[in-house]
């Protein structure tokens, strides 16, 4: 009975979303005037990706402070997790109930909202050269640039690094690897020293894509890679893809304890393995650095180090590339309170709030210039952002940079490589088919 209810709920959710779209979705034709003088009254709705500890209080505190400054303004926070926000955003979009301000990744994800006329053009207020725009790094602003217009407010930068336990490395007598091959070689001594060399959980599929995207950047020339993200120009026949898939399989087999069962392990379980001191390494985002070394964890900030996933020998891509991208917020183009929304986001990205965001326990390196310093942020967060800023290019997450059908094919392919049910060639063929179908 419960089963029936669940499916009925899912179907009703979809049907309602579709149905509501007819009456609410596209009813508003007003175009947001983001440059207008804000009227400090009414209710402002905000969809964040800050649910759960330790992030949840950040926007709650900001909302309370903003309300103190503007008592007539009510702020309605909808806080979601990294996992749930995708569904929530799409449901709200389909039902024409997008909030005034909503979270977005860069790449194809944000482009959908821009193309659909759901993201306000913020060029007049945030483009480089404007007062607000000049507070951000230009690369962060450019990440939300489409058709020469600026649509996003980058809140924090992000990048992916191998975090490691210095004590484990010392006990195993291994150095920080300088090549992919050295990384693989270090796994056996670490295992002999009593550590799981690399903790890895891929139950949700996307952690595997993060490895793959960094390896693709190393193995496939940048211009080929960029062309392959768009189905219209994709060929997906560079030999670097197969090499990267093979390297990924080697890493899973040689360096993880879960091996072919990695798809059955939660990402958070892997994170806890490093934080708890049982794993020597774990591939993670800058946003997680302060989490794995939080008070109470076996891994302390002093014992925690980071390095970029090392480059494989003979790779034909860009060895200086790093995977990551800023994440930020869009303003609903149909919001009647767009000017107020802009004012709130200016408040959120004010220097003192940007510094708070970059500090423990939040550890989200703000995209605001000067917010991440050795004084305001933990040592590793600062070091990570420094590397991101100095990278030759930042390659956007594989699951948001390309169209959903292709991302889905990579997702299934990554799982198939881990479980050993498909060869790299078979995976690449399935992705090519998905890309061709999406043209």
């Amino acid at each position, binding site marked *: 009975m*419960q089963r029936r209810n*669940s499916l009925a709920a899912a179907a009703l959710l979809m049907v309602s979303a579709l149905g509501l779209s007819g009456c609410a979705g596209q009813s508003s034709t007003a175009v947001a005037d983001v440059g207008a003088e804000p009227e400090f009254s009414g209710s402002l709705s905000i969809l964040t990706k800050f649910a759960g500890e330790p992030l949840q209080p950040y926007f709650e505190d900001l909302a309370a402070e903003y309300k103190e400054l503007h008592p007539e303004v009510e702020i309605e926070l909808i806080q979601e997790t990294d996992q749930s926000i995708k569904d929530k955003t*799409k449901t709200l979009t389909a039902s024409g109930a997008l909030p005034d301000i909503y979270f977005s990744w860069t790449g194809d994800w944000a482009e959908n909202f821009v*193309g659909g006329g759901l993201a306000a053009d913020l060029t007049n207020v945030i483009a480089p050269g404007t007062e607000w725009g000049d507070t951000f790094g230009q690369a962060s602003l450019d990440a939300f640039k489409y058709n020469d217009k600026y649509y996003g407010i980058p809140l924090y930068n992000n990048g992916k690094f191998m975090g490691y336990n210095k004590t484990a490395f010392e006990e195993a007598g291994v150095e920080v690897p300088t090549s992919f091959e050295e990384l693989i070689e270090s796994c056996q001594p670490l295992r002999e020293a009593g550590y799981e060399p690399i903790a890895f959980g891929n139950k949700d599929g996307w952690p595997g894509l993060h490895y793959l995207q960094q390896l693709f950047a190393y193995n496939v020339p940048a211009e080929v890679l960029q062309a392959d993200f768009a189905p219209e120009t994709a060929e997906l026949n560079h030999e670097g893809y197969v090499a990267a898939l093979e390297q990924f399989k080697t890493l899973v087999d040689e360096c993880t304890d*879960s091996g072919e069962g990695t798809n059955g*392990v939660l990402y958070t379980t892997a994170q806890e393995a490093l934080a708890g001191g049982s794993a020597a390494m774990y591939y993670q985002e800058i946003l997680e650095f302060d989490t794995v070394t939080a008070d109470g964890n076996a891994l302390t900030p002093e014992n925690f180090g980071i390095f970029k996933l090392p480059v494989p020998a003979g790779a034909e891509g860009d060895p200086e590339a790093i995977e990551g991208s800023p994440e930020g917020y869009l303003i609903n183009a149909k919001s009647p309170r767009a000017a107020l929304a802009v004012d709130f986001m200016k408040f959120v990205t004010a220097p003192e709030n940007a510094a708070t965001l970059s500090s423990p326990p939040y550890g989200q390196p703000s995209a605001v210039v000067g917010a991440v310093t050795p004084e305001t942020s933990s040592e590793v967060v600062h070091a990570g952002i420094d590397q991101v800023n100095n990278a030759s290019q930042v390659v956007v997450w594989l699951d948001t940079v390309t169209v959903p059908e292709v991302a889905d094919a990579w997702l299934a392919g990554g799982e198939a490589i881990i*479980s050993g*049910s498909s060869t790299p060639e078979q995976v690449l063929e399935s992705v090519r088919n998905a890309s061709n179908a999406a043209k």
Partner: protein
Amino acid sequence: MLTVEGTRTRRARVPGNPSPVQQTPSRKSGFRKVLGFTWVLPALLTLGVFVYLPLVQNFGFSFLEWDIYSGSQTFVGGDNYAKLINDPIFWSALGNNVLYAAVSIVFQVCAALVLAAIIESVRRERWRRALRAVYFVPSAISLTVAGLLFYFIYEPNLGLLNFILKNVGFGALAQPWLGQESTAMMSVIAMSQWQGFGYSTLLFAVAIQRIPSELYEAAAIDGIGTIRRFFTVTVPLVREMTGLMTIVTISGAFQVFNEVMVMTSGGPNNSTQVLGTWLYRSGFVRNDFGYAAAIAMVIFLVTLVIALVQLWITHRRRVEW
């Protein structure tokens, strides 16, 4: 009252009789009909708006290609259905639903009936009650919670199942149960059987309790053994419940969603996709809402047929004794 109305009716049949006398009852009954209709109108409206209108709308959406971002809707005829026929994941998902149904019939109908018969054959009432409770407890747990619980039981490194296998000398059987395509679907189905088994058993127990004890006593006097008694007395006399449970079980197997979402999200490599999760993924992950609507129509048609069979069975003459 009936007599009076009957008299009036007879009068009304007389040719040339004045009309006022004729109109009174029909106006009254007409008013009653309207009044009665107004009472059920809210329920009809609710049913129409929240059940039938979405169904009709969904059918319409299955012929569209719809971009939720721009709101543009393009009529594509039967393209979504053609795509469905050529989609290997759809067929794999359908196959998983059929597998789900087959295993569920074995456990939730056949095995549950056997277990119910065993429980009901226990002489001591106290033990009977205790056994019913023990088997029913998993059914009281929500599917989401049960899914999460089994997710941790199946965890390859820290999970209880592999821990037990390794510690009783069957370490070679330890598997990444949910992490590999060969075992993931059956692992999810196994959890589902654990969860639903007690409920089916309880329903069969109730059906067995309705069988007159004289029949069992007569069988015992004739020297019929336990197993033959089960096949000659119990099975025929719970036929109605067996039919109902079979239909409900098959119908439920085609609507499975929660446990798959919680435990595997359809992975790895789409090996545990069922129609419900593939609908969800097509709509909410791949933004292909028209295609998702077409999948929803398939689920609707399958469950409609099953529901019609169910109605037919429940309207058949009941077993009398």
